[in-house]
Every structure is written in structure tokens, then in C-alpha cells.
């Protein structure tokens, strides 16, 4: 089957029910997307399909309905997305393992809702677990990113 990831089209030969997560990580060697729980409980595997945040561990390869964007496609160290810039500015990460998913979730939130309230942020980000407990910084970084995007 064909998959477009970060603007590049790939031909992959996998089972229909292989989760997109593992297609990305093991077949296409895109490692920014993380395995945390495998059952859509932690959000570490969050990617965008046509701009919408989805849990790639619960998205079967055959069901991918559009272009996939991973953290690598959101921005790069040389050309960061506003969300990534805010994550650097607030030094959000501790272990950092959940942060790809957090940033993908935040980017999707801000694309839909450019000026989220605290309650909006709580709702949107609640499915993304951070075992290091960086939540205070995630909240602050989402707000900073919102401001950056509005000014841009």
C-alpha cells in the first residue's frame, strides 16, 4: 500500500491491521513517533493525518485516509514549528519521550483553536500522558505557541 509521510510517498508491504505506529517506526525508520502504551492511553504515538491529531497505535495501516505528518514533518531543528520553538523556550522536556506526541497534539489544537482557554488546553491535552510531570511547562508552552502563531 501507499503512504505519504511528511510529503514523501512510500510503498509499504504490510498487513492491513499493522498499526501506523509500527509502519512508521519499523518499516520507514521514522523514530520521532513513540510507542508508549499501544492502546491510545498515553498519546506518545500522536501524528497528524490530514492535519488531524490521531493515535497512530490505534490506526490500522489500511485505514490511513490521508497524508501523514510526524514530528519530523512538523518542523526541524533548523526550521522549527512555533510549537517546537515554544517547547525549546520553556525547556519543557525532561526525559522527552512523550513530547513528540504532546507537540503534535498541541499543534493540532492550535490549528483548530488559535486562542485556546485553559479549559480548552486541558481538554485537548488530557490524553497525552507525561510520566515526568512536565504539565506546568506544557501549559505555558501551548500558550506561548498560540501567541507566536497569532503574531506570525
Amino acid at each position, binding site marked *: 500500500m501507499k503512504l505519504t509521510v511528511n510529503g514523501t510517498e512510500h510503498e509499504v508491504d504490510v*498487513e492491513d491491521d*499493522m*498499526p501506523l*505506529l*509500527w509502519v512508521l*517506526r*519499523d*518499516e520507514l*525508520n521514522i*523514530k*520521532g*513517533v*513513540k*510507542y*508508549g*502504551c*499501544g*492502546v491510545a*492511553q*498515553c498519546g*506518545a504515538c500522536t501524528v497528524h493525518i490530514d492535519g488531524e491529531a490521531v493515535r497512530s497505535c490505534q490506526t490500522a495501516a489500511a485505514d490511513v485516509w490521508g497524508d501523514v505528518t*510526524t*514530528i*519530523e514533518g*512538523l*518542523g*526541524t*531543528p533548523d526550521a*522549527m514549528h512555533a510549537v*517546537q520553538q515554544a*517547547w*525549546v523556550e520553556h*525547556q*519543557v*522536556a*525532561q*526525559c*522527552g*519521550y*512523550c*513530547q*513528540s506526541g504532546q*507537540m503534535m497534539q498541541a499543534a493540532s489544537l492550535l490549528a483548530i483553536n488559535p486562542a485556546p482557554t485553559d479549559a480548552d*488546553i*486541558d*481538554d485537548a*491535552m*488530557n490524553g*497525552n*500522558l*507525561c*510520566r*515526568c*510531570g*512536565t*504539565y*506546568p*511547562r*506544557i*501549559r505555558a508552552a501551548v500558550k506561548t505557541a498560540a501567541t507566536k502563531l497569532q503574531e506570525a
Partner: protein
Amino acid sequence: MGRIGKIARRTFLVGSAAVVGGVAFGYYAYKRPVSNPLLNDLAEGEAALTPYVKIDSTGITLITPRADSGQGAYHVQAALIAEELDVELDQVSVDPGMPDPAYYNTALSAEAAPFRSTDDGFAADTTRGIMDAMMKFMGMQITGGSTTVPDSFEKLRLAGAVARETLKAAAAQQTGANVADLKTEKGAVILPGGGTLAYTELAATAATMDPVNDVVLRDPSTWRLVGKEMERVDILAKSTGTQRYGIDFEVEGMVHASVRTSPRRGMMNGFDAEAARVMRGVIDVVQVTDGVAAVADNTWRAIQAVNAIDVDWGPAPYPAEQDAHWQALSDSFNADQQDSRFRDDGDVDAVLEGAEVIEAEYRAPYLAHAPLEPISAVVQVTETRADVWTGTQIPRFVQTNVAKLTGLNADQVFVHVLMMGGSFGHRLEDRVVREATEIAMQMKGTPVKLTYSREEDTIQNDTRQIAMARGRGVVKDGKVEAYDLGIAMPSVVASQMGRQGLPVPGPDLQIVAGAWEQPMQIPNYRVTGYRAPELAPVSSWRSVGASTNGFFHDVFLDELIHAAGADPMEERMRLCWHDPSRKTLEAVAEMSNWGSDLGPNKGRGVAFCMSFGVPTAEVVEVTDVDGAIKIDKVWVAAEVGRVIDPINFENMVQGGIVWALGHAMNSEITYSDGMAEQRNYYDFEGMRLSQAPEIFVRGLENGDTVRGMGEPMVPPAAAALSNAIFAATGRRVREMPMNKHIDFV
């Protein structure tokens, strides 16, 4: 080839060694007559160089051998070296000590044994048995046991200073200038005329010289980096998805494995893998100790296949049902099982006799570590060497255990430590490496990556200890007059060290850690540890014994203070005789404006615990929202001697509060049919973003010793929450997780 310089007054010595194209600086550790498990495979008199700075023509590498599980250890170590070396953090690469083949091919010097990446990465704070032995030596001193950080604090700066001065000497030799006229800045020596020579241009010369060991560390007032806000060295990678972790590691020709071992932590009677063997991508099904592994061409296929194996598991070596675990603790409060009574002031029995005694019982459950990155390891075994790539806090044990399993010598086992996606103590165990090695031995030459499913990671977790405490106390004239606390738990140290084949004789200080050593002056004050029998496997969970005992000790104190009718803050301050500790209480009182009017349905609790030598006071503020508790705000003040990076410090403390409160609210591991009943984050929740309070942090610097802050924020947090819930609702919650007794928003 450099040699060891003249011996200074120090107990360690910075040396240098030529490496391909440059020079490495580090310190030598000698085998001494006193047995030191860190240096077991060195002959007496032999030395190992642990390099901290490597410079060649391509660049400067700071080597940060202490493992990083997210706490910023690489960053802090790099900053300490860079402070004295005069380099900027964006000029250097930071390497956790991934062994460079150059080291193995270079005989360092006549005095030095071959380089080992693991000598220091082993890190004293990973071995609680050794910690406890140390604490025994230190007896009742209030300074406690954590000497790792102060050790690095000087050692790494010294390595940086010796490297800097040696590079200046090299510049003097190359240019004929006088060393006294040379300065250093941003990775270069500044010549008298204003010209510069980059360190990279001096490395080859420096490698031929004796290291300059006659250095004086700079005065803290002149520091450029330490104590200042810095950008963490890994923050860019971790903000762009480019950071690689153990689970991401790949090597040419690698196959993927996943494993299931007994969910009852016992034997495997047999298995039927017929269905698994014919699944797509499956290469083999092999046995490991007490379990079975599927090997496939992709992680998901390996997990699918191993789950398709029909296995007959034997019984658990501990009680099958949770109630029996609690019963075992309850039965342990007796003289035969008394493990320690290091605190016994006044005459507790006499005061309790005939008085109105306040009694309470407390419980704390088993808890999984559950870092977000499931455990994994890549192992390749050949006839002559084994390579291990994994995120571990105990590379030295890993090396020993892989050598034992494979029959290779320890110096044929190469442990490459990778970045960890959290640990909280989880990666102080090495079962994933042992199992990966067992698989790799059955397919020699092929690198095998073993990845645990989240479910397997949870079921096989060597959890935090289960613990129970019983308090009896008396109050008189508005004051706490007698305080008697007994704590029962299985020995974490015995369980953990037992898995490494190491006996730990004597009392286990962790049974009473966070309780017996509190700097409280209660006239009649006793803390007794009772050793419960070994139950389910237990291990070090962030703050170890203090994670349960900080809760027990302070909540019972709070109950007595309320019974006495005293103010919880003022009475703690009155009881606390240790000035730096009392200052943490004063700080949180001031930060939280303790005593101010909160309005309806709100309450505040204060708690104090000294653990790992760090006095920590915390205030939690909650609101009772129609019968459900919402945690609004937390204030933390901790005495750490020196804050190395204020941003990293604040983030870590806030995270530790989220960690402690999340588990206190809603998390436990329980056993039924001999198996952990929890499988994934849906039944082991922790805290979510919407529940996270505002957290205000202050690091105090009144002490003269710098201390680690990875754990001490944890023990008081659950106590402060329980105390706040009491203040808001009048209900006393004596058991974790607290959602068994009260709802949370």
C-alpha cells in the same frame, strides 16, 4: 603518551591519555585493598581511566557517564566540566560514554588498565545496598547518605580545570609564550598578542604532555554557567523528535523480539507456539528463563506472535491474593521481625502507659515505575564479544551478568548506555538485558532487539514496596509529647540485591528511611522498623523507603498536632531543631502566605521530610468541589546547598510533585491469582494535565554541600495532600491510593 601527574591532596587524580587524533582527560580509580565492587575486575594496583573530556581535531566531547533518565544528568555534568574548561555548551558534543573503539585499541599508559565505559556510569546512587552501608558508617549524622552529587560536583570541575591548564601548557610549548600570559575562552587559548589557538589544534600536543594537576577550582562568584539559567544540552533534540532513546536504537542485521515470562513471577511449565511460528515475519520462537520469546522482522509482529503463544504458567512464589500481602505486613509488627530502632528518645512506653493514646494505621501500596518508554535492549553475542545497547542505570551489573550468561570475560562485554525515556528506578533492574542475551545466545552473531510490550513491562515490574505503619502518640498542653511509629515492609534492598546475587546483611535502613532520621525534637520519640517476609519482587522506586515513610511519618505527626490543637506549621517549626530544615518550613510558610484566609471549601496541609540529605517542606492547597478534591496549588522549599541550573531544578521538582501526587491519588498494583492485576495506563493512571496544580518551587542554599534533588520532593507530597484534605473536609485519609476513600476532580 601522558602519565599520571604528581599526586595532589585529593583522593582521585586527573590523568590524560592519547586517543586517535587527540587527547582524553579523566580520573583514575585504583583498586584498593578494601573491596570495592565498582572495581572488581581490576587487579590490585591497576587503574582505570574514566574520561570526561575528549578533544581531537574534529571537536570537543564532554563525556557524562552518569545515566540520564530525564533528570538532566547529562546537562548538569556537561555544565560542571564546561565551567572550568572554558567552553560553551553549544560548542561541544555531549556523549554519555558510548565507548569509542579508539579507547580499546590504545593502551592508555603503563599505569592504566584498558578503558571501561562503565566504571562511573554505575553510579553509587544506584546501589541502595552500598548507600545503606554508607549511611550506617555515617550513623546519626544529619547529613545523610547521598554523596554522589557532591562527588561529581568537584570531580567534573577538576577534570575541566586540568584539561584547560594542560591545553594552556600545550599552547605555551607550541608558541613559546609564557603560560601565565595565556587565557582561555570559548574553547580556545588566547595568546598574549590576541591571537587564538583552538583546543582542537592543541590536542595532539597535549597528548604528549603530563597533565597539569596543580589547579585550583574557581570561586563560585566567578562562575559563568553553574547556578545560572542554561539551555539544557538535549532540549533542542527533545523538542524536535530527533532525540534517540534505547528503544530507537538500530544496528545492521538486527531482528526484533518480544517476550512473555511468568506473570506470576515463577516457573513456566510449558508452551505451545504452533500458532505463533506460522505468523507473518516470525523468525523463531525461543525459550528464556521462566518464559518464551518470539523473534520477528518487526516489533509489532514480535509482540503479536509472543501473545499468540499458549503458555502454562506455574504458581507464584508469594501469596496469590492481595489480602494475604497486607496480612503478612500486619503480622510483622512483632519483636522477632524488628529490623531496627535507630530512633528511641525519652521513654515512650512510660508516657503511653495510662495516657489517652491517639492511634492510627496507614497503608501504601505496590506501585509500578511505568516510565513512558517501555524497557528494551539490543544485544549481539559472538564467540569473542558481546555488545549491549540499552538505557540502564547499572551498566556495571549488566556487564557482569552478560559475562556470566555468555561465559565471556567481563572485558569482552561492551555496554553502550543509551538515553532513557524515564526510569524512576525501573532501569536499576536488568532483566530485559538478561533475556535479550539469552535470545541472542541462541542466534549468535545476530543483533537482537528485545522490546517489552507495555503490558509485559507492567506485569514484570519490580514494584515499589508495599508498606504499613502504626502510630501511637500522646499530646499534652497543646504540644506533641510522645510519638511512636512502627513501619513494616519487605526489604527492598534484599529483594533488589538478591536479583544481583548479592547478600545484604544487617538491618535495611530503607525500612525506616524518611522517618527515623527526621530532625524533630519530640520528648518521647521512637521509630521502629519491622521486616516483613519477602512477598512480590520489590525495587527502588523514586525515593525508595521514604516514598512510603514520608507519608506515614508526617501524616501521623499532623494528626497529633491537630489533636494538640496547635497550628500545623508553627508546631512543626517548634519541633524542628535543625536550622536548615526549619528554614524550609519558614520558606513555604512565607511563599504560601500560610495562615491567610482561604475562603470556603478550601484547605491547606503542610508536610516535611528530609530524605537523601535534603530537607524539604511542602504546602498543598485543595478545594472540596461538591465532595471531590481538586488540588489547586503546591509550594515546595528544599535545602540543596546549591542549585546548579534553576530551570532544570524547577522542572524536576514540579515533575516530582506531579509524580508523587498522581500516584497518591489513583495508582496501585495489586495481586490476584498471583498476577499483577494492572496492565496499562488505563488501570495505572497517574496524573493528567487537567489535574496538575500550580507548583511554586524554591531551592534554598543555606547548606555547604550540594545535593541531588531527583527524589526528595516525593516523600512529603502525599502527606501534605492528606493533611490538606483533612483541613478542607475533616476527613483523614490514611491509605494510598487516596481515591479508595475520597474522590478527586
